[in-house]
């Protein structure tokens, strides 16, 4: 709060659906009390002895505990040449969380490809058996990326791509990519990773781009082969504000896009959608003034950040944004939707984004 007075006044653009924008002045006011999230409870770590081994149990209450602070993971720059990583950008990924995979091996990718393509072809033509290993129209490729690892404990990311060749085509024809998905673990929870038995591979985050029907087939195949469970990862408003705060603080060399928030207000007959866009420089400056330490972000900072934005909005439009539902956050680094859809925009900050998403996925899995 003391840093607030140091900020120069900038122009901000605020948009409400249907209304034209106007220039307003940004004044930091902190009069409003935003309702706090669900009460934080202490995390209890209990280890069980069952008759058959030790399973580590994490005693979360059912309402997921919100951490009071999160570390900013160090950003390892990704090399320019890697085409696959740039392939990840500017696509909308749907998020799932995955329980640990049993007997997944990084050396058997060819076999997995064959089996999965045969499986998909068999599913498409129900009742007709398919021989495994022959050339099919649908081709599946498994590969691994080690650039997405956060630290040494993480497993390498696994990249799956389904391509198809049209029926009558020469071998030189381009294959069209039907579906892409990848499993990754970036800065995974060290406690869980250390307790894991060696037969298990922990890749809690699954990102998918492509048709739902192929996602279903791939997911079912994984569930049958590696005995894991997939569940949709939804992002709640609290985590969206964390994302907004943390990503605003990321350094970007070029191309600044506006930081945009999308709020949804249930009203009849139509939902009212409020879109609130802030000039990136302003947002950055606000965050810089709030954010203290180099490698940690605390809950108070995030709350303060959001409160400032809300109060500014209130000043001009007399609408309490804190009472609405935050649905989407877009920054220059990435954008996230509460349905569990994420778009990565900045190559340099991919690791940071993935670290946060991995943490969300890990929290959803009941270990």
């Amino acid at each position, binding site marked *: 709060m003391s840093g607030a007075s140091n900020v120069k006044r900038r122009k901000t653009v605020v948009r409400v659906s249907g209304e034209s924008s106007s220039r307003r002045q940004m004044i930091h006011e902190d009069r409003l009390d935003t309702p706090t999230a669900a009460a934080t409870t202490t995390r209890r770590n*209990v280890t069980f002895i069952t008759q058959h*081994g030790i399973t580590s149990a994490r005693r979360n209450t*059912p309402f997921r505990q919100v951490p009071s602070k999160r570390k900013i993971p160090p950003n390892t720059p990704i090399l320019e040449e890697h085409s696959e990583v740039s392939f990840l950008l500017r696509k909308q990924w749907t998020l799932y969380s995955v*329980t640990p995979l049993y007997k997944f091996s990084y050396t058997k990718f060819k076999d997995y490809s064959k089996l999965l393509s045969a499986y998909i072809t*068999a599913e498409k033509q129900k009742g007709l*058996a*398919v021989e495994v290993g022959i050339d099919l129209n649908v081709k599946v490729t498994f590969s691994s990326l080690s650039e997405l690892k956060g630290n040494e404990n993480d497993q390498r990311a696994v990249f799956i791509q389904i391509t198809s060749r049209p029926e009558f085509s020469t071998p030189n024809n381009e294959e069209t990519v039907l579906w892409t998905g990848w499993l990754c673990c970036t800065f995974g929870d060290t406690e869980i990773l250390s307790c894991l038995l060696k037969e298990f591979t922990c890749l809690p985050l699954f990102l998918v781009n492509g048709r739902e029907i192929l996602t279903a087939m791939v997911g079912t195949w994984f569930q049958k*082969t590696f005995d894991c469970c*997939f*569940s949709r990862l939804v992002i709640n408003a609290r985590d969206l504000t964390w994302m907004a705060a943390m990503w605003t603080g990321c350094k970007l060399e070029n191309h600044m896009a506006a930081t945009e928030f999308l709020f949804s207000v249930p009203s009849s007959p139509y939902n009212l959608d409020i879109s609130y866009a802030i000039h990136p420089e302003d947002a950055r400056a606000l965050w810089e003034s709030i954010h203290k330490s180099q490698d940690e972000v605390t809950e108070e900072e995030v709350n303060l950040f959001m409160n400032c934005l809300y109060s500014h909005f209130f000043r001009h439009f007399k609408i309490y944004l804190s009472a609405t539902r935050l649905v989407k956050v877009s920054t220059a680094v990435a954008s996230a939707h509460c349905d569990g859809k994420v778009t990565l925009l900045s190559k340099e900050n991919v690791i940071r984004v993935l670290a946060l998403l991995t943490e969300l996925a890990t929290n959803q899995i009941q270990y």
Partner: protein
Amino acid sequence: MGKQKLRRSSQRLIKPEQQPSYGKGDLSARLRNGKERGDITEKITTQKTHQDKCHSADDQAEASEHDLLEQALQYFGKVEGHVQLKGNDTLLKHLNTVERVGTQRGLPPEGIDILLSLALSGKFVDTVNSRLLKCLIPSSVVLEDTVVKAVSWFCVGQCTASTQVLFIRWLITMFDLIDRKEKLHALYGCFFCFLQDERLCPYICHFLYLLTKKESVKPFRVRKLLDLQIRVGKQPHLQGLLLLYKVYCPELVSLALPTRVKTFFKNSESLWKAQMMTVRRKNLGSPSVGLQVDFGIKQVPLQSKKRKWNSLMNLPISSSTVSIVSQKVVSSLYLHQDEAFPVEQLQTFTQLVQNIHRLEFPAQMGSVLQSPLLLHYINCIKDDSVFLRLNYWMAQVLHEECAWYTGNQHNEMEVRAFLDTIANAQQFLQEGFSNCEEFLYKSIPHWNGCYRSQILQLLSWIPLTAFSEMEQLLYEPLGQIFFTSSLYFKCSVIESLKKMLQNWLSWHAFYADQVSIQDSPMNTTLSGLVNTVSDLINFVGRISTIALHITSSSLLLHFILDFYEIVCDMYVKYAMPLVVLPPAGVFYPALLSMESVNLNHLCYIMYRYRKNLVAAKENEWTKKCKLRLNISSKTFQEYNQYVLAMVGCLWTSQAFQKDSHPQGIFMDAKVLMRTGVENYRNSFNIVHHPALMGHAVLFLQQGFGEEKTLNLGLIKGKLWNWYVEYLYKRGMHGLKVFIESSIRRISSSAQSHSSLSESCPSVAQK
């Protein structure tokens, strides 16, 4: 070959007095048989001669039949070339014989040998062949060589197509009766070639389905089947065979079946089934049902309604893991690969026991919950990853699908069914799952009473650990919901807590010494476990007291006394070094209850407490127990107070006088006089107690008849003793043992007030 056998059997027939080799019937059957044939004309003098005659008559009858059969077989064995049926009486006669014998008693292996080859050799017309094949029921086994010979005739193809079809159907039906099958397995390729024939294809598929083993599945065969499938379409029999191939070698073929699983193969057994039952019944007696109960993994018909693919309520079906072998090492590993027994084939317990060393785990561990056989299997395996897999899956399902607090919509029926499955699995394994316990800890604080019976069942399987937060997570919320719920709910909660205590005690009795040896990260000590148990008992005591204040229901009291029946025997039965008495809020309502059931129960419980306390006292001095006994002198004191009050009420007619318990029913004489009740001292003895008064009235009615007005005061002296015996006979066993143990009668005909109660002297703890 056949002729030699015929000569030997005809020599056997020379001796008519030989005992028949077929089963012996009873006398009346013999008589009936004899009369039918008109052989017995004389009157029966001695049983022996009669029996002899009967035997001989029967023998003759069967011998004649046997004779006929031998003749028929002799005839058939000598048939050469093509034989006409029309007008051929010999052929018809022998055919009839063979049919009769075959459908009633079954044919011997040699007979089958001859007839089968004959039927396939094309020497007869089609009608004869089909009649022959239809009556070819074996009496015992079918020899392998017979079948091999028949297959060679089959391949020659001299018989018609319909005969061929009938032969294959016969093979399918008699498959289990073929004694050895090595040569048949060697002929697998030969059968495989016949798949090309359109008429034979469904039956050949069925036969191959029975015959296939893992080593029969080869890539070229897979390819052939796939080509065939492309040619003829999605025939169910091809799908069935391909499914079996997929089970054995999923790395060679992949198959997805449409939603509704139909039967793959047509029923080929119908032609012979009835006769086979007859033959089997005749030869082996009534068919033993045996323990062939189908525990197997059922092919659950896939749900027809649409679901999300990752909806975790799809309970997985057992299927084998795909063993992925890199192509280079195929040859060496092939030998080991056929060691594994695929889990879909597991149908019976005998199969499990025979293949237990090479059974592989299913691909999705969640499927074990539905199969008792697999539950047996995972119980024997000490592999952590098995349970981790199960845990991950189950924890996810419980969190995603069953948790009512996440706000998602759930299908109630499915959730109930799933929770029931988990409860059954835990019941089967006799232990709880840790993720289930976690789920309960998370959800019971927010419980609104939904899925009541399932949650309470799961509650009883929470394992015994020295977990200190149980009070907060479990007892508090459970208590809250307990007090505000219906009577039935209260009883259910008490019952599930009783079961929980029982499970804890059973576990403790078996595994307690292991726990102390292991290095437990939770610092689980035996005393910690004992504390947990005593916490539970105290909790139940508290809520029972308050519940009995709220509702004075006899049903609730019954359940509470059930709980204390477990508690009272903890030391003797389960070696738990703990004796906890019921609180006064439970004891006195039971003592003054209106039902003889509860009173009887209370007496039994007090008797068991005595046993436990005495045993505890003895062990303390005599044995050097490694378990520190948690029994203080207060317990003994309290017990004495209880017993004195009880005896004072029930026996010595000193109700309200002898009670020194601080929460007891002692009342001043003046107060009692003001109530205006006469004879208040007697009012709770075994004659006048409201629970037992009915028995007293019946007793007097028995003795004095119905008309006389009954005075309960008549029951004293000798009548008292008779009345006591009467009560014992009426099932008041608890009362019996209590009186015998706690009351020393001075003389057998003593008055009611002349007895002494023996109490345990209190022993100070070290």
